[in-house]
C-alpha cells in the first residue's frame, strides 16, 4: 500500500510531483490559448520552406513588437505567464521553433546553431518585425546572441534568460554519444516512447507544482511523432553541439580582447540554481561581456519566466524601454 501523499505539504524546490498526481490544468491560470494563433512561411537556404506556428498578443498598435524565443524541450507555451504583463507594453510574437510545438521540422543536418539563429531573422522578415527586440530563454537566448553577433541590425536589444554558453562535461558527453551511428534514432525513440512522461521528467521548475497534464501535452505531443522526436534529437546533436558553442565562446573572447562590447544592448537574467543549466554560465558570460548587466533571480529555475514571471518582467521592461502610452 502506498504511503498517503501528505496533502497541503509544500514541495521543496525542484521536488517533482509524481506524474500520476499532475492536475489536468495548471494551478496558475494563463492566457496562452487566448493569444492569436497564426502561421507564417519562412524560407531559408539550409532549412528550406517551413510552415511556422506562432502566437501573437495585442496586435493592434499597443506597443513595439517583441519577439520571444523558447528553448529546448519547450514551445511558445513556455511564455504563458509573461504574455499578459509584457503585453501591456509590447506586441508579442511567439513562434514555435522549427520541429517544435506545431511548427514544421527542418531537414536533418540543418539544425546547426548558426542556421537556426539565422532562421530567427527569417521569421522576423516573414512576419514583418525585423529589427525588433527579443527575449530568449535557454537555448533560445543562446541562439539570439548568435544572431546579434552575426547581424547586429536584426535585434534592437536582447534579454537572455539563463542560456547555456559554455560547453560543459554533460554537453560534451551528450554530443559524443549522439555522434555514434544510430544514436539519434535511439534518442528520438526514447522521447517518442512515452512523450508525456518524458516532457514531465525533463523540464525542471523551482516550483514543480506549476506543472500540469496540459503542459505535458504541449511539450510531449510534438515528441510523439517521428518528425518531432527527430527534430528534438537534432537540436541536441547539432544546435547545442559543444564544438560550435566553443567557437561562440572563443569569438566572445576575441571580441573582448579587441575591447569590443556586445553589438546590441544585452541583459543577462539568471536564476541562482538550476539542475540542467549551470548558473555559472551567467557569471562567465558577464565576464566576457564588459558593461553587460547580469540580474540574478532568487527562488527560480532556468525557466525563470515560468517560476518567477513578475521578477523577470520587472527586470526586462525598463531595459527594453517599455512604456505604456494611452
Amino acid at each position, binding site marked *: 500500500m502506498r504511503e498517503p501523499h501528505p496533502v497541503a505539504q509544500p514541495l521543496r524546490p525542484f521536488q517533482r510531483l509524481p506524474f500520476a498526481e499532475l492536475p489536468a490544468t495548471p494551478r496558475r491560470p494563463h492566457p496562452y490559448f487566448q493569444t492569436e494563433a497564426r502561421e507564417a512561411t519562412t524560407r531559408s537556404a539550409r532549412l528550406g520552406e517551413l510552415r511556422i506556428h506562432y502566437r501573437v498578443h495585442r*496586435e*493592434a*498598435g*499597443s*506597443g*513595439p*513588437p517583441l519577439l520571444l524565443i523558447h528553448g529546448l524541450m519547450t514551445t511558445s507555451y513556455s511564455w504563458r505567464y509573461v504574455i499578459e504583463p509584457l503585453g501591456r*507594453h509590447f*506586441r508579442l510574437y511567439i513562434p514555435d521553433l522549427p520541429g517544435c510545438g506545431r511548427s514544421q521540422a527542418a531537414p536533418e543536418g540543418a539544425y546547426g546553431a548558426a542556421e537556426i539563429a539565422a532562421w530567427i531573422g527569417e521569421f522576423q522578415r516573414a512576419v*514583418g*518585425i*525585423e*529589427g*525588433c*527586440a527579443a527575449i530568449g530563454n535557454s537555448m533560445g537566448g543562446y541562439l539570439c546572441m548568435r544572431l546579434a553577433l552575426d547581424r547586429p*541590425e536584426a535585434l*534592437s536589444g536582447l534579454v537572455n534568460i539563463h542560456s547555456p554558453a559554455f560547453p560543459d562535461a554533460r554537453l560534451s558527453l551528450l554530443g559524443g554519444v549522439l555522434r555514434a551511428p544510430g544514436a539519434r534514432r535511439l534518442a528520438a525513440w526514447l522521447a517518442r516512447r512515452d512523450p508525456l512522461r518524458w516532457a514531465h521528467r525533463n523540464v525542471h521548475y523551482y516550483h514543480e507544482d506549476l506543472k500540469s497534464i496540459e503542459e505535458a501535452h504541449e511539450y510531449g505531443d510534438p515528441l510523439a511523432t517521428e518528425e518531432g522526436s527527430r527534430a528534438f534529437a537534432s537540436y541536441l546533436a547539432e544546435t547545442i553541439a559543444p564544438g560550435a558553442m566553443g567557437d561562440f565562446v572563443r569569438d566572445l573572447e576575441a571580441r573582448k580582447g579587441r575591447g569590443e562590447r556586445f553589438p546590441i544592448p544585452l541583459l543577462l537574467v539568471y536564476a541562482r540554481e538550476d539542475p540542467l543549466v549551470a548558473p555559472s554560465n551567467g557569471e562567465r558570460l558577464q565576464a566576457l561581456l564588459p558593461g553587460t548587466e547580469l540580474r540574478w533571480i532568487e527562488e527560480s529555475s532556468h525557466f525563470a519566466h515560468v517560476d518567477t514571471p513578475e521578477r523577470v518582467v520587472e527586470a526586462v521592461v525598463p531595459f*527594453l*524601454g*517599455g*512604456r*505604456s*502610452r494611452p
Partner: protein
Amino acid sequence: MSAGNDGQTVQLNGIELYYEEHGQGEPLLLLHGFTGCAGDWAHAGRDQLVREYRLVAPDARGHGRSTNPERSITHRQCALDTLALLDHLGIGRCKAIGMSMGGNTLLHMATLQPERIEAMVLVSATMYFPEQARRIMAASPMAEEQPPEAWEAMRRCHRRGDEQIQALWEQQRAFKDSYDDMSFTPPSLSRITARTLIVYGDRDPLYPVEMAVEMYRAIPRSALWVVPGGGHGPIFLEAAEGFARAALEFLREG
C-alpha cells in the same frame, strides 16, 4: 535628458538621438531630408500639422543635434534608429511624413516592420538612385569648395561643429557609390501595408517623375500627387500651407 530647444535625447544604436515633440494627440512622425534637421518642418507646414497631432520630429543620425561616430549614414540605419525611437516612446503604430532621405527611411521602416506605420506621406523619396541622381551627387562640392552662405545655413541646423557638417558633405558625395542601401523593387515594396501618399515635383533634378509612378504602382494602397513645376521637396515656404492641408486630409482618411 534634455538638450537645447524643447527637445530631448536618447541613447540608441550607438548614437545620441535628438528629437522634439510638439502638440497632443495621435503621434505623427516627421522625418527631415538629408543635410536638414527637425527644425525644417517649421517651413513645411508644422503649424498646421501640430493642431491635429503630437509631432515627433527627430534629428537623423549625424544631423542637427544627433551624433554619429561612424560618420557614414545609410537610410536603412536611419530606419532602425527611428524604430528604436518609437520603441523608446512606446509607440506601436503611427502615421508619418518623410521628406527625401526621410521618405527613403520610411520605405525601410514600412518594409522592415509593416505594422508600425499606419499611413505615410513620402515626399521626393526614391526606390533607388538613378544615374541622373548619381551625377548630381558626384558633383557635390567638398567642404573646402562650399561658399560661406552654405556653411552658415548648415551651422544653423547642425550644432555639433564643422566636423559634423564636413561629414555630411562627404556622405552627400559618397551616395554616388551607394547601391545596396536604396535598392527597392516593386516586389519588395508590395509588402507595405501603410496607406501611402507619394508627393513629387515634376521637375525634380534628382529623380525623374517616372520614379513616382513606379512607386505608386508598387505600393498597394498608394495615391500620387505630382506638383506642377515642382522641384525636389516641393513642400516648403509658399507651398507649405497647401501641402499641410493635403497631407492632413490624406492622413485623416480611413
